């Protein structure tokens, strides 16, 4: 059994343990309704994490999602309130995301700024723009039907979850079967070797940051339709949560390692934890502590294994 399969099994086992624990504390936890609840809530971070895993595989990471998500939510709310249909509004949101991603890509690939600093900078800018556009306030949907995506469901599963599933499959296929995906693993695994082999590392890097920002922006739109409000203050924890989920799922910050299945399990673990703690009425700040501890534990165990195997 190889390393990544073992890891996936361990993570799933961990998830099962968490579920069992919370069920023993409150049987209401283990219900179809709650399960769907977890999925719907997780879909926002899930979408962001799909973009984050791309950047992390390529050897960087994207902190600016904490600003792009609220920006996406605000832009979506504004466009919908102006009478734009859902699809055009989503298109507008994606366009905004693409611009943010382009800026990130240029800063990292051409100006050669460290991804940490570059995306930290764009985080402040996009977050600031989100707050400015919304005048620091919320932008409620003038027509509650615009949140229609959140209300509708297919086969009893909320549309937002289907969006997450569809995107997960798409990103999985990109990573496994496309040239771009292959280049991501190459650039993340050894940037210099990729460059010397004639791969256009700048183009790949820019593409990855554009993808990440577009997904984050889309997640913002999804979040807005769940809250029926666009706001510059929601989704500001997206960066840390998505990075935690991706690393929990087995990706390496050094790059070259990672995938969709692990990321989804990471997202589920974090989402289940948050939900469970809310159900047993753990105060909010304990939840943050618990999330951090879980991340450290999981990564610690994984690193210890890697050290022992000499990887």
């Amino acid at each position, binding site marked *: 059994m190889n390393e990544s399969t073992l890891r996936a099994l361990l993570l799933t086992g961990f998830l099962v343990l968490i579920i069992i624990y919370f069920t023993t504390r409150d049987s209401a936890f283990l219900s179809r309704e709650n399960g769907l609840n977890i999925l719907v809530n997780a879909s926002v971070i899930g979408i962001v994490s799909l973009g984050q895993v791309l950047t992390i595989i390529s050897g960087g990471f994207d902190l600016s999602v904490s600003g792009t998500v609220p920006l996406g939510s605000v832009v979506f709310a504004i466009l919908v309130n102006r009478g734009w249909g859902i699809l055009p509004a989503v298109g507008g949101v994606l366009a905004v995301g693409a611009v943010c991603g382009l800026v990130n890509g240029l800063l990292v690939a051409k100006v050669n700024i460290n991804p940490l600093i570059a995306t930290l900078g764009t985080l402040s800018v996009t977050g600031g723009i989100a707050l400015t556009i919304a005048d620091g306030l919320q932008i409620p949907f003038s027509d509650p039907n615009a949140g229609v995506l959140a209300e509708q469901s297919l086969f009893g599963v909320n549309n937002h979850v289907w969006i997450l599933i569809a995107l997960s499959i798409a990103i999985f296929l990109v990573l496994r*079967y*496309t*040239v*771009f995906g*292959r*280049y991501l*693993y*190459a650039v993340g*695994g*050894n940037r*210099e*070797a*990729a*460059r*010397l*082999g*004639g*791969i*256009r590392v700048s183009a790949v890097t820019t593409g990855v940051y554009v993808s990440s920002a577009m997904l984050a922006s889309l997640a913002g739109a999804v979040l807005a339709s769940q809250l029926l409000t666009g706001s510059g203050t929601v989704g500001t924890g997206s960066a840390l949560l998505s990075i935690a989920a991706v690393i929990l799922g087995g990706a390496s910050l050094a790059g*070259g*390692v990672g995938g969709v299945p692990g990321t989804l399990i990471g997202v589920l673990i974090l989402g289940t934890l948050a939900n469970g703690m809310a159900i047993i009425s753990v105060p909010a700040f304990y939840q943050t502590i618990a999330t951090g501890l879980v991340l450290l534990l999981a990564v610690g165990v994984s690193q210890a294994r890697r050290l022992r195997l000499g990887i």
Partner: protein
Amino acid sequence: MVEPLLAIDGLAKQYGHHRVLEGVSFTLEAGETAALIGENGAGKSTLAKVLAGAVRPDDGKICIDGKEVSFATPREALTHGIAFIPQELVYVPNLSVAENIVLGRWPRRAGMTSPAWALRQAASEARRFGFQLPLDRQMMALSLAQQQMVEILKAVARNSRIIVLDEPTAALNSEDSQQLLDLMSGLATSGVGVIYISHRLDEVFRACRTVHVLRNGRLVHSSAVSDTNPKDIIRHMLGRSIDEVIVPKERFDGSTKVLELEDWERSASPPLRRVSLAVYEGEIVGLYGVRGAGAETIAETLGGLHPDVRGRTTVAGHALHALRHPVASRRAGIAYVPADRKSQGLVLTLSVQQSFSLLVMRALSRFGVIAGRQEGATARRLASEVRLRARGLGQMVGELSGGNQQKVLVGSRLASTPNVLVLQEPTRGVDVGARLEIHRLLRQLAKDGTGALLVTSDIEEATILSDRLLILRDGAIVHEIHQPTLSSQAEALHAAGGLD
């Protein structure tokens, strides 16, 4: 009788089954400059690292002033008075020169120190030993020659009595080299014992008193420089050939040029001076020279790594606009195999199949989607062409042996059926069996018509593989050997070492 400054007796070191050093013994007097010579892999660096305290020997004694010593860490070696200046200098680039000089010797006064103190201390030491250095500038702003001076001053300021220098002039021009050699004699005059590791026989004969020759981990010759001559030294270095089957060369008679360089010039270090050469179809042209002579620079430029090189380049009849970037190099039909497979050539986390196909993804995909079956077929073909030994095409490259990794690297470059192959150190760190197979592969490629430019620091390999061997020195081609044989090694080493 006065005990020698340094006495090594029966030093041995083994890595796995490989005996890197065996029964090495010699002495060094105060004020003596001893040269340590040997081919790559002969054990020079390991010996230097043992003296520096970076590597523990498996056997043998080290005595300083007659007293046996052992070092667990480099710091202990320093305390005993041995300073090692490696080929790749180790310093803190963003600190000032003065701070680098006093590194590790800051005063233990309430944990506080000051740049002013460092400046004063460094200045007084520089004065004492007669060094002229810009003490307040950042280390990284200095030239390589100056940086080496700083390293040497660091060593002397610590009252090091034995200084080991590893190929210090490798990347220096002749002026700076002479300055360094003068500095070395100055050190010797003041009673320091110097061990000078080098490939440059001319410098050895000019500046050293004694010479020790290592071959395959054993010390095969020790004498005063005045008692020997370069021919003898070379003979000791090469000794009897390793008993290995030499792949026969076909007589090539191609007339089409696949690669032509005309008047290449480079002013940055290491420089190139009016280099012109041609590679014909079906020919393997070898480039050999000491480090910094220009051989690896030419290869790297063909790989797109030195956009500052001026001159004309023609590949398969097409004149190239410029080789500014590896992408341009690949587009021109040049397949470049870099020197360091781990850091420059391979993505160790990819599988064998993925590595083989990495450079030709465009040809193996439609609208951005990888054609799995085609990729598999390509990988299988290349794996058999290079005679790869792996558990399967899905095995991670990082798990393969050095020789097999090298085969994957070379194979990945062949995937695009290039016009010309440019290889650097194709069998570095590769076992004898894999080395032979790679040599066979290259000769087969030559027979099939692919031209190759080969840069290697292994003189034996250069003579085995090349149809024509060009010797470089100080950035220019100084000698050409047609159809070299094993016995051409002496001739090549002569030309590369600057002896007439």
